[in-house]
């Protein structure tokens, strides 16, 4: 669906409010929305909610052969998907610009910053390395996709455990999760993106814009930083011109925000770790708040299936026996077999009405029209006849052929000569055909003019 355009009065309203340092949801200029992180039962699965923007992240791993020019390094693969439920405007063909931009930013932020130690992902140099794949799905779009996605990615990577591998000389043993506890990835630092939206040619600045604010902004500055105040990536889009001190100021704000967010992430990871160790319940079921009236839970419900057998027997006893089973298949020639009698061709009606338009018209003109092999189109006259759609060479065929306009019909077999010779102009072409495999001739309908 097309994106609903933003009305002028809404745009003016938002801009005026921003000029007066007011935001629609009551936040201050530098405030982030509430971040909520929940984990699933599998390792590496998490859902991050930044206000109403929701991103699902999942990490998975696989043993593959390494890239040729990086034989001792593992492979990282990132994929951010804008699900169609996130916004009505996200349709498969339509979101390419935004998608490419977000994916590229994610890659720069996570791969180029070397936050994951790829050397540790090597199992056998030059032969087997781990490929870590991070899939991010945007579930609800309420602005600031990039921040939510980067948080989801880094949380999922920190949460993920890969199967343990041991190498003894030439032998490589891959342990299943039951045999040996899976091992976490080796992560050096956690880069997190912080977005700044600029309005009125850089005069006003907002951190963590929501969807409405994103629509009216002039430009966006994204700074990816880790808690050690190292900038991993910086990107300015929208064509706004920023002064040096504006950028420096933004990076200071980003430093503060990243520190807060990193603390939140570490706490969430720790909580999940604790719950798993103590054997408590974990997973998305636990993160559904009980108090909400829109949420409801039901414990395990036993089902009484003791009368299932009696019911089933009753039904079978009452059921009619199945209809006559079709006779065994008949093999006419190698490659041509028949089961059953076939159905009447439902193209029949169309054929009759079409034929009135044909110059060659009726059933009488047998030789005239012939077959136009160049266009590969033939007149089909199976219409009123019943019987199967395929024909075989005379002999013992009980099937009645239609009064087709062809004189004869040949089944071409690889080593034999065609049994009958066609009396039509296209015979030359057919004689070449014996070199091919046996061909089942088919009548094609004349294309509608």
């Amino acid at each position, binding site marked *: *669906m*097309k994106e609903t355009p933003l009305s002028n009065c809404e745009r003016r309203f938002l801009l005026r409010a921003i000029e007066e340092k007011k935001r629609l949801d009551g936040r201050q200029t530098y405030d982030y929305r509430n971040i909520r992180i929940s984990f*699933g*039962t*599998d390792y590496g*699965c998490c*859902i991050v909610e930044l206000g*109403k923007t*929701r991103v*699902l992240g*999942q990490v*998975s791993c696989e043993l593959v052969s390494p890239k040729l020019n990086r034989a001792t390094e593992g492979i990282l693969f990132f994929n951010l*998907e804008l*699900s*169609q*439920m*996130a*916004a*009505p405007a996200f349709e498969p063909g339509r979101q390419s610009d935004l998608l490419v931009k977000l994916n590229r930013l994610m890659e720069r932020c996570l791969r180029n910053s070397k936050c994951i130690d790829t050397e540790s992902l090597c199992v056998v140099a030059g032969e087997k390395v781990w490929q870590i*794949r991070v*899939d991010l*799905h945007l*579930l*609800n*779009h*309420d602005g600031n996709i990039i921040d939510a996605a980067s948080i989801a990615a880094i949380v999922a990577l920190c949460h993920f455990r890969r199967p343990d591998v041991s190498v003894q000389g030439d032998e490589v043993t891959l342990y299943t999760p039951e045999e040996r506890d899976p091992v976490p990835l080796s992560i050096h630092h956690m880069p997190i993106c912080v977005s700044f939206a600029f309005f009125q040619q850089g005069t006003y600045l907002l951190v963590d814009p929501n969807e409405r604010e994103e629509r009216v902004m002039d430009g966006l500055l994204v700074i990816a930083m880790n808690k050690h105040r190292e900038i991993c990536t910086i990107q300015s889009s929208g064509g706004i011109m920023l002064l040096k001190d504006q950028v420096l100021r933004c990076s200071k704000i980003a430093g503060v925000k990243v520190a807060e967010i990193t603390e939140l992430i570490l706490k969430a990871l720790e909580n999940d770790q604790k719950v798993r160790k103590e054997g408590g319940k974990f*997973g*998305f*079921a636990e993160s*559904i708040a009980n108090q*909400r*009236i*829109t*949420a*409801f*839970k*039901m*414990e*395990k*419900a*036993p*089902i*009484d*299936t*003791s*009368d*299932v*057998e009696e*019911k*089933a*027997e009753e*039904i*079978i006893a009452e059921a009619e026996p199945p209809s006559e089973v079709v006779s065994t298949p008949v093999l006419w020639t190698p490659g041509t077999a028949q089961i059953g009698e076939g159905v009447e061709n439902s193209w029949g009606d169309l054929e009759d009405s079409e034929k009135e338009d044909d110059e060659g018209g009726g059933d009488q003109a047998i030789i005239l029209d012939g077959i136009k092999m160049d266009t590969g189109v033939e007149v089909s006259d199976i219409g009123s006849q019943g019987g199967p759609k395929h024909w075989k060479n005379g002999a013992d065929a009980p099937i009645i052929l239609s009064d087709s306009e062809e004189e004869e019909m040949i089944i071409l077999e690889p080593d034999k000569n065609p049994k009958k010779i066609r009396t039509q102009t296209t015979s030359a072409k057919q004689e070449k055909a014996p070199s091919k495999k046996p061909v089942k001739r088919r009548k094609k309908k004349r294309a509608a003019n």
Partner: protein
Amino acid sequence: MEEETHTDAKIRAENGTGSSPRGPGCSLRHFACEQNLLSRPDGSASFLQGDTSVLAGVYGPAEVKVSKEIFNKATLEVILRPKIGLPGVAEKSRERLIRNTCEAVVLGTLHPRTSITVVLQVVSDAGSLLACCLNAACMALVDAGVPMRALFCGVACALDSDGTLVLDPTSKQEKEARAVLTFALDSVERKLLMSSTKGLYSDTELQQCLAAAQAASQHVFRFYRESLQRRYSKS
């Protein structure tokens, strides 16, 4: 834990009625459902069955592309996204099954030349995925206020090598089973809307599974009713 429950129930059944080991007390896993959790779609629901979780979002009735419009009813579209990797043929086939089920219950003729889109995202897969998708889709359609002539639910059951029936199988049970059958049942008369099966089974077993699924669907519909009552009641 699942296995323990089954063995206990099996023993009980044998002592009680002295019937064959078939048809022990099966049980459905822990259910949870949250509606209206996403702000952009018209209706959304997250359905959890044990560890299997599916998130559904519904947009509709909304504008439809001219190429896809149907003159006398709504065009229903179902999109299923797996968690890892790109969607493949299995997803396409599940989308079709879910679409056929939805088309049978949604009153499309009330909204001609519109589109109703159901988007499903697999959040975690631990067995009976298709059944969970069906349940999530139904709850999301209800949340979106799409007119339907009945509710529907999905129930999966597995038959293991000695013919024991297990309802709502986990992925381990599905892997070890001889046949896995998923049914979509409607709420008015527990009639069958859709069935998708994989594996080898006899027609007696099919009827048994269907009867068991119908018994299980009672519980699922009661769950729907209670969760909607909780949401819409004034107390």
